[in-house]
């Protein structure tokens, strides 16, 4: 009977102080790791955003340059009356095949769209697919009197693209 109430008073265990110190150290280390992890995630997000923006600009530029380079003439924009440069979020030109084409920026969707403008009565026909996406700002700028040089300013998530196209088929 006496054995039933016999306790081993020498049982090894952690004291409250030890547990608190251990918990504090763990919390500090865990906090540092979590902070590092969050910082890395933010950094990765920024890098991914830059990469996406760069890709958006590259794709939009490429699509537009291919057609503009061989275009016949630039219809809009043109230099101002005082010969200063003129910019707009859209440009209209006659392409190699003789079609009147318009590129315009849809600020609501961040897309650059291409449409064919009828040479006479009718409504413009917008292409199903955009030629550029994720673009925040666009400026098509007429640079010369001969209407052969057009500047393209593109901005996507803080990344900028500065291009110009000289029309070969004037």
């Amino acid at each position: 009977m006496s054995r039933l109430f016999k306790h081993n008073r020498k049982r090894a265990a952690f004291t409250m102080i030890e547990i608190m110190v251990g918990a504090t150290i763990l919390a500090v280390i865990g906090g540092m790791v979590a902070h590092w992890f969050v910082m890395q995630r933010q950094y990765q997000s920024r890098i991914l955003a830059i990469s996406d923006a760069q890709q958006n600009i590259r794709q939009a530029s490429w699509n537009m340059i291919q057609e503009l380079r061989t275009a016949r003439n630039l219809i809009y924009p043109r230099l101002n009356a005082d010969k200063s440069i003129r910019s707009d979020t859209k440009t209209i030109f006659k392409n190699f095949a003789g079609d009147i084409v318009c590129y315009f920026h849809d600020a609501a969707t961040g897309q650059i769209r291409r449409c064919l403008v009828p040479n006479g009565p009718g409504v413009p026909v917008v292409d199903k697919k955009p030629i550029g996406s994720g673009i925040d700002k666009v400026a098509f700028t007429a640079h010369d009197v001969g209407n052969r040089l057009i500047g393209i300013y593109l901005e996507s998530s803080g990344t900028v693209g500065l291009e110009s196209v000289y029309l070969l088929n004037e």
Partner: protein
Amino acid sequence: MIRRGLSLTEIIIALAIAVMVMVPVTSMFSTSGQQVQKSRNFSFAAGLARRISQHLMAMPFENIVEVPLPGLALHDSPDDVFFNPIVNFSASQSGVKKITASDMPALHDFLVQNDFKYALSVSNVSFGAGDEIKSISILITWKEAGRNMIYRTHVYVSSV
């Protein structure tokens, strides 16, 4: 009393292993970030070179002149012919915007940060009176993580 726990040596070894794992992971993140930024700067430089090459086509032949190294800094050349003025959404000269801290702050900061410059090396080739070609090397330079970077392209412009 026999207390079983971790010895200091064991803790140090565990920490050392943890650090050895964490350091490559961290450097992997930063390396990929540097690659993306490098790629962005390179694409931007290629765009600048293309822009210059296209403007050269439209310039009067005699106005194509040498721009010696170290070149012109884009953030500090408001009267430069290739990049300024850059946009104008108004119907007169009063609305032109140049690459300056006041007109285009984000672009200006980016150019300052990377110190983008351009230089032109021009060689004349003459085939007789009024029949000349200018051979132009376009050099775009910038700084990236303390390193000097360069992008080079070449164009020919005819006088006729």
